[in-house]
């Protein structure tokens, strides 16, 4: 069966690839959105924490013999602690300054960490096997879907849902929403907002690292993997609306799908379609599809 002279198999295949890319866009842009909402900084280091998550899994496997499942917990935890330290030591000192400073700071952190990894591991990338439980694939009609990729989509949806639940339905989440809206008043009610900022940054980059662990069996571990992805993720956040959690999730998957479909229809445009979309949204609705204009 052909649609627009293109075999249905190609459509389905690209839709699945779009969903997987969309999973990573969604997971990374949630963290960016939460950090932007509360800390008011564009976290240019987000991609590097994703990369550190991927390498974390690789290192835990190669040096400590730990498998995928323990890494899924330990790597994000370690990266989250590194993130919290960076927030405490550096970021917290530039909040009162212009946005440019935090941008340059996180950008500098990115360059430094990325270079360290490039020195240590080169640029060719490290392969990482999917866990035994998720190897092989499932035949779905006309296409063959690797089990691991199905798991990525499911895990990402679950993670988005848990993050949403945590922010909208828990006590710590209500602190986070309150401080995002009015930090001064939140402090006057006895809540330690500076500590909340540290926790939020740590959790946000921990989520990025978790995405990195999910990504490593698909893409391998490569020092540049974060920077490559982050450019698209920033476009996703702009399209969805800075600071909107729900917007990030929906837009992440949407952009992944649009990219996939463009790959079928007009392969050359698939790398730029996101940015074209971003420009259109910025012109038509500058606050983003789900953003509230102030």
């Amino acid at each position: 069966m052909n649609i627009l002279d293109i075999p249905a198999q190609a459509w389905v295949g690209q839709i699945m690839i779009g969903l997987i890319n969309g999973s990573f866009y969604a997971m990374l842009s949630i963290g960016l959105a939460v950090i932007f909402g509360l800390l008011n900084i564009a976290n240019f280091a987000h991609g590097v924490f994703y990369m550190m998550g991927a390498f974390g899994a690789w290192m835990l496997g190669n040096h400590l013999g730990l498998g995928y499942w323990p890494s899924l917990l330990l790597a994000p935890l370690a990266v989250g602690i590194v993130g919290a330290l960076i927030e405490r030591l550096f970021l917290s000192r530039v909040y009162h300054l212009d946005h440019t400073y935090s941008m340059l700071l996180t950008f500098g952190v990115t360059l430094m960490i990325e270079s360290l990894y490039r020195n240590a591991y080169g640029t060719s990338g490290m392969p990482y096997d999917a866990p035994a439980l998720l190897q092989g694939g499932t035949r779905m009609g006309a296409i063959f879907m690797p089990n691991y990729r199905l798991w990525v989509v499911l895990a990402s949806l679950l993670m988005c849902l848990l993050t949403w639940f945590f922010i909208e339905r828990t006590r710590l989440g209500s602190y986070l929403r309150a401080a995002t809206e009015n930090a001064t008043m939140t402090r006057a009610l006895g809540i330690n907002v500076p500590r909340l900022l540290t926790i939020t940054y740590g959790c946000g980059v921990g989520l990025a690292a978790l995405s990195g662990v999910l990504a490593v069996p698909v893409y391998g571990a490569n020092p540049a993997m974060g920077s490559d992805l982050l450019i698209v993720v920033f476009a996703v956040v702009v399209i969805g609306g800075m600071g909107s959690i729900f917007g990030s999730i929906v837009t992440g998957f949407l952009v992944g799908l649009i990219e996939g479909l463009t790959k079928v229809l007009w392969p050359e445009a698939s790398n730029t379609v996101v940015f074209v979309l971003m420009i259109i949204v910025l012109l038509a609705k500058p606050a983003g599809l789900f953003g509230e204009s102030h």
Partner: protein
Amino acid sequence: MLERPASPPASHAASHPTTGPAATVLAVHELYAGYGDDQVLHGVSLDVKAGELVTLVGRNGAGKSTIMRSVMGILPRRRGSVQVMGQETIGLPPEKIARLGVGYVPEERGIFSRLSVEENLKLPVLVGDKPMPLAEVFELFPNLRERLGSAGTQLSGGEQQMLSIARVLRAGARFLLLDEPTEGLAPVIVQQIGRTIARLKEAGYTILLVEQNMHFAATVSDRFFVIEEGHVVNQLGRLGSAQAVAELERYLGI
């Protein structure tokens, strides 16, 4: 906590003598504060004793709200001395000051629109050893019970004011900073808020109030500080007569 039988706030306070009868809850000495380069307070000194209701009066822009914010520690630049419950708070962050048992009810009420009424109510961390049970909170503010599921900003102005007071009571604050609690409210709501403040005073709460409505303030206040251009220019005791109220209103230029 909702299951607890409602008891009047008075009994709650009787079982809870905070500080000695004449202990000083707030002692401000030579306080200088402002916003950026704009100096608003020029050496303010005042005090509030336990169980007292002290009202700051003065024209708009005299610095009354700035005094409240300085006490709460939410102005970055402040010099001088602000002692709360005997502890120096210059240099302390607002969250630490709140935890000394201070409940701040700002002029703009500070209700969070992204939080439900219930979340707003339960947001503050406990700042005293005797938080007001929810049953008592609802007895004081019956309207809030029905609105628990609403978004914070779906409330009327009066309900937002009640929520703003209710949440610091629920947190256990015993020293309340009430900044123009009746501003912009309908007369019937003003009366309700007024009765509530009178009850809280009876129950032993210490209150620093900013209020423009002199007829209301005169009935509940133990003392007045008159603020002009960032200075304390006069201190008055209880206003017994209509003549005294008139004198105060002259300060306000009403």
